[in-house]
């Protein structure tokens, strides 16, 4: 058991609905602030995050016929004429397609543009940047099961946020846990590429993002690159940034074991994959 102590601060959470799922922002209560001021701060922060998600959804949602993404899919708008935001996300997604050798792709099998595989991760990343800009050091943002944290649930300590990962066979139970953030929340703390991989604590300390993809996932933006039976029911990836975690989790579900091995060699991540038969594959950071 890695968890050494329970958070001593009471947590407060706010939620809103966007992108077809629910986004939760959780913060520890600040004992040095009047309760009402702390509550107002959380309300204001949630409003900022919600507006950011809503604006991105209005651009990228394929469920809204009037969105820019929908107009692109219908051919009413060409990519070169699209907004800078749209082109930036396409460029980012296209780069990930190269890096994952096609396991992650911004296009559907019929060639239609679909950036939904990267938009939620991007929204979480932008929300995290906004929260830090607001001066908030300790928070946990969960968007439909993808998590980004900062600091600790117990401010002033190095206690990590402890994330549970649902069991795909029974979503009411947890398959595993993983520590996020804590003492060394700054990703740049670890010397690039040479962090000791055997140390779980140091390992978990460098990871602030955890993303999970499933083969039975909503909004089927995962296209199997293996063209056969799905190898993984669910893949969780912990990384130093949420887009990397999200994209690689998606890519591994689509690309199977070969993409899993490629991802663990190429990127500084921890991964936990659930095979179709329920067996687990895990990197060292997920071991007890």
């Amino acid at each position, binding site marked *: 058991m*890695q968890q050494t102590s329970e*958070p001593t601060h*009471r*947590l407060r*959470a706010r939620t809103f*609905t966007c992108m*077809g*799922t*629910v986004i*939760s922002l*959780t913060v520890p209560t600040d004992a040095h602030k009047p309760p009402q001021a702390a509550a107002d701060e959380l309300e204001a922060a949630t409003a900022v995050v919600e507006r950011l998600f809503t604006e991105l959804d209005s651009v990228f949602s394929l469920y809204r016929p009037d969105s820019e993404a929908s107009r692109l899919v219908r051919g009413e708008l060409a990519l070169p004429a699209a907004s800078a935001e749209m082109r930036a996300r396409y460029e980012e997604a296209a780069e990930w397609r190269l890096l994952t050798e096609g396991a992650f792709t911004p296009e559907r099998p019929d060639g239609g543009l679909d950036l939904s595989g990267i938009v939620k991760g991007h929204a979480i990343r932008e929300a995290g940047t906004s929260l830090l800009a607001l001066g908030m050091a300790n928070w*946990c943002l*969960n968007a*439909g*099961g*993808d*998590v980004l*944290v900062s600091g600790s649930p117990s401010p002033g300590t190095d206690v990590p946020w*402890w*994330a*549970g*990962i*649902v069991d*795909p066979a029974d*979503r*009411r139970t*947890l*398959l*595993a*846990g*993983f520590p996020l953030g804590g003492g060394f929340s700054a990703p740049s703390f670890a010397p690039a*590429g*040479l962090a*000791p*991989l055997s140390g*779980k604590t140091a390992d978990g300390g460098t990871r602030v993002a*955890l993303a*999970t*993809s*499933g083969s039975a*996932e909503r*909004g089927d933006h995962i296209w199997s690159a293996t063209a056969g039976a799905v190898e993984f029911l*669910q893949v*969780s990836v912990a990384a130093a940034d949420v887009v990397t975690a999200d994209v690689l989790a998606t890519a591994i579900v689509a690309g199977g074991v070969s993409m*899993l091995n490629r991802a*663990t*060699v190429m990127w*500084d991540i*921890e*991964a*936990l*994959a659930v095979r179709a038969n329920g067996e*687990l*594959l*895990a*990197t*060292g950071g*997920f*071991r*007890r």
Partner: protein
Amino acid sequence: MRIRAAVSAALASAGILLVGWQSGVHVADTRSAAAAAATGNQASGTGTTDSSGTASSGSSGSGGSAAGSSGSTGTAGAAGAAGAAAKAGGTYDGEVVQTRFGTVQVQIIVKSGQITDVTALKLTDAEGRSMQISNYAAPILRDEVLQAQSANVQTVGGATVTSDAYLTSLQAALDAANL
């Protein structure tokens, strides 16, 4: 030339294979003597710091160079001594390679042009301690993964849930408890 290419490629492969090894084998450094006995010449890798070592597979001039590399830690690639003598067999050491997992060096034994054994000579981190050089995702039992109960987590990760499914999710229970 073909054999040298094959040996180089095999060494590069061995370097990749090493990434799959977890043991902390730390064999005494016998490379100089062994290599000298085998061929009398040795090529230095010309690759980049690419951890795979493949960049060095085509190092030029390895056959003719008489200046043996001392295996300085700055050079990369797993290209080792090869040359015509490889046909007769012998023991060859790869260059010391810096990877993101630490310092790696392998030794191969060649018989009749075939690699018959691969040994890790160096498999240590910067502090000289043995370390895991692989982050390979290996099969694991359910009771071997980091455990968590819903009562002691602050958030719940999982494949995206719809806003309807959220209502009955563990995350919803956590959020409700913290409202």
